[in-house]
């Protein structure tokens, strides 16, 4: 037993490959947050007046709120006055094409394996990328091609200027500025993020993706993503992220809003690989994110898939408000925590419309000294006739110093609803390991194989390139943890 544990521990401690820092000339606000900082931010971003009002309203509300502490997390107090709320690489006046992007930045994304060069992408696997670097979007590819199809894909700061009507109509229509502490903070200080609008009846011709990179120190990243799928449209969106290896914790508080109108479908996939801190739990990103989708139209569908391997602390619940009749919400999640990582993640499915259905598949893997919590809510309101939910939460424990917790909430006010919830917690059994080893696999490969099998139901929901990346990531994150 003890030998197995040592082996497991050896297998874990894998290094974080994206932990480098890019040396750049940057514009950074001094640390601190007050109304002047917000005014300055709005001015730097050249925003219309309504945005400043929106931000100030959010900020004033935020000041009345308290840092929440209900999660199964142990968080060092955050000093919001010790963070800089804006940091952007210095750049030339206006970027006409990719050639004008700072070569240092291009190099950074190349190192991260993010294709910013349209020509060099392989035929057939075109992915449009919006690259967000600290507080700003530095490049967005395939904008032209997408516009031809009628699809708007651009940094949200541009959308605020170019499509104010859409912004006014949809921004904060799912996650209001009062929603929660971090959403209010985000509304006050968000700097960039992606904006997607798919017009009626359009199937987005390629996968859209955003890559978030934190580079500067002592800053927080507050990004905002807004995706609107108009009637009968379809879009698949991917999100990735990474950050340098630092000893202090950095805050990432994002808000993602999805709006699915009648007959539309949004598929949102995340591979979250923020710097998780070192072996002793030093440093790492605090990933406090509010993600919510509103299936506003009848027959709409939103599917969240997430693979969470990074961050010192993950605190997020991608949710679906199933307003439209026959709408569908899905949540597929793999959350892996190792060393001193903590995750409190899950979903909320709010059934409002008739014949709405939701599926939740959550796989939590806890190794080292990590704590991994699934927290979910399934709520069936009075008018949601024939609502259907199926929830399955499985936890896998690797090693005897970690914890795995399951906290589902089920609230049903409609007798025709059918709600099922199942949860199990177990460890990789000695038998399974022995079986694999006896067939010539090393202990590490065996564990990796078993874990991948455990997560298969979720991985099959990922777009192909992501699925490969996710599996590799899982292998790395688990390295040294096998047991």
């Amino acid at each position, binding site marked *: 037993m003890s030998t197995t544990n040592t082996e497991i521990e050896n297998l874990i401690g894998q290094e974080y490959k994206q932990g480098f820092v890019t040396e750049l000339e940057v514009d950074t606000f001094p640390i601190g947050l007050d109304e002047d900082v917000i005014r300055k931010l709005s001015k730097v971003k050249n925003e219309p007046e309504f945005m400043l009002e929106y931000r100030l309203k959010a900020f004033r509300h935020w000041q009345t709120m308290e840092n929440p502490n*209900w999660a*199964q997390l142990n968080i060092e107090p955050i000093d919001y006055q010790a963070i800089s709320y804006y940091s952007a690489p210095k750049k030339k006046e206006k970027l006409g094409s990719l050639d004008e992007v700072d070569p240092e930045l291009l190099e950074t994304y190349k190192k991260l394996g993010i294709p910013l060069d349209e020509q060099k992408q392989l035929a057939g696997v075109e992915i449009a990328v919006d690259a967000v670097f600290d507080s700003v979007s530095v490049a967005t590819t395939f904008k032209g091609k997408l516009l031809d199809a009628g699809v708007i894909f651009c940094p949200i700061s541009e959308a605020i200027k170019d499509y104010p009507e859409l912004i006014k109509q949809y921004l904060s229509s799912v996650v209001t500025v009062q929603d929660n502490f971090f959403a209010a903070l985000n509304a006050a200080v968000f700097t960039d993020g992606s904006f997607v609008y798919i017009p009626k009846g359009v199937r987005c011709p390629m996968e859209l993706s955003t890559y978030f990179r934190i580079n500067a120190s002592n800053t927080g990243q507050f990004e905002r993503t807004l995706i609107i799928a108009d009637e009968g449209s379809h879009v698949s969106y991917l999100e990735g992220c990474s950050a340098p290896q630092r000893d202090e914790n950095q805050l990432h508080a994002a808000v993602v809003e999805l709006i699915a109108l009648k007959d539309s479908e949004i598929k949102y996939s995340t591979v979250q690989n923020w710097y998780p801190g070192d072996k002793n739990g030093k440093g790492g990103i605090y990933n406090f994110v509010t993600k919510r989708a509103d299936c506003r139209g009848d027959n709409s569908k939103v599917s969240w898939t997430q693979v969470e391997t990074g961050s010192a602390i993950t605190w997020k619940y991608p949710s679906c408000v199933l307003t439209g009749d026959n709408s569908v919400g899905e949540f597929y999640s793999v959350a892996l925590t190792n060393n001193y990582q903590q995750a409190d993640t899950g979903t909320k499915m709010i059934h409002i419309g008739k014949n709405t259905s939701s599926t939740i598949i959550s796989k939590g893997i806890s190794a080292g000294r990590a704590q991994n919590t699934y927290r979910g809510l399934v709520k*069936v309101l*009075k008018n949601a006739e024939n609502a259907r939910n199926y929830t399955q939460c499985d*936890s896998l*424990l*690797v*090693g*005897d*110093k*970690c*914890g*795995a*917790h*399951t*906290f*589902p*909430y*089920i*609230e*049903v*006010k*409609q*007798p*025709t*609803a*059918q*709600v*099922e*919830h*199942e*949860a*199990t*917690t*177990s*460890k990789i059994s000695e038998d399974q390991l022995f079986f694999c080893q006896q067939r010539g696999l090393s202990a590490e490969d065996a564990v990796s194989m078993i874990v991948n099998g455990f997560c298969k139901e979720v991985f099959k929901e990922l777009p192909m390139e992501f699925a490969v990346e996710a599996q590799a990531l899982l292998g790395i994150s688990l390295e040294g943890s096998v*047991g």
Partner: protein
Amino acid sequence: METKLVSYYSDSYSEHAALLSGQSVLWLQALRHAALETFAATGFPTLREEEWKYTNVTAIEKHRFKPVANSEAINAELLKTYLLDDMWNLVFVDGKFSAEHSQLDGLNNEVEFHNLAYVLATQPEKLEPYLAQAVSNDEHNFVAFNTAWFNDGLFLNIPAHQVLTKPIQILHLTVSPDCLATSRNIFVAGKNSEAQIIETFVGENAYLNTVVNEVFLAENANLTIHKLQSESKQAYHFGGTYVKQQPHARFQHHNFSFGALLARTDLHVDLETAAECSLNGLYLGVKRQHIDTHTRINHNKPHGISREFYKGILDNRARGVFQGRIVVAKDAQQTDSDMHNRNLLLSANAEVDTKPQLEIYADDVKCAHGVTVGQLEEKSIFYLQSRGINIATARNILTFAFANEMVEMVSIPTLKKLLATKLLNLLPV
């Protein structure tokens, strides 16, 4: 509003304190005052507390409940229905022991079996090692409230190796309007001992009944508690049972919640090495009833086994709440735990909120939970209809069958019969 209420129970405390037992016992007075202070700080729990998220107790504040010195006449019919044959019966009226209605003939002399007021008056030191040891006042304010206000209760101490030949029934009957009935029971089961207890709660009028049971099981003891909560339809009921199990002890709990306007049951079990517990229950709510059950099983040491199975039926505007929490501590390897909660919603206005929870800090464990919420199956109804049974009867048959599974787990025939009768009476005509 809240401040008013807190001050009502704090202010009126000195006025009523003379009625409460154990006035001359110093350590008890200190305990009571600490409890009163804890309670006075925040009053009854509110929806803001996670453990009370779904249960609003502000309705209690509309009343001014107080302990009753002289009880009204007892409804003999109620006693007749609920006092079971062939067991030792203890009756508490308005929270006070009534020797007149109790019968303890033939109970082994070695078994200590007294009402709490009597023990506090004669040998209070016997209670000191147990009182407020299985649960602290910080648990929540109903417990603190109980500690401050309890008047009577039962002290049962079964010596090692004793096996009680008959079950003990404790009948709590509350009859006086606006009565505050508060009792505290201490159950101690010695090594290798064995006993069965039936707690029954019945009454008339609006009243508040709070009961806290502290249960101590020594090594290899085996105790079964049945709770039949059939309070008056205007009553408020809070009942907490807190169990400490030594290695290899076994504890079974059968919980039937049928009565009260608002009822809350807390059930906490602490398991040491290789201890086992099984918690079964049925809550059935009609009209505007609110029935809340909170269970927590703490696996503190290895090899523990826990089984939990709760069913709920909610009709009309009733609301059911279930929370089952299983905590497996770091040392509790080889824990085997299984929890199920099944709910049947019979009406468009009924509601159920359920929260099964697993909190696991050990890796070599087998833990699972499952929850379902649904309605009667159309196919089953159709099957019965096709055999000439009308739809209302078909629904009743299926509802009864769903509930009766829990009744069947009870091994005492007279209790089983009473439960089945209660159940049939509760089904819609």
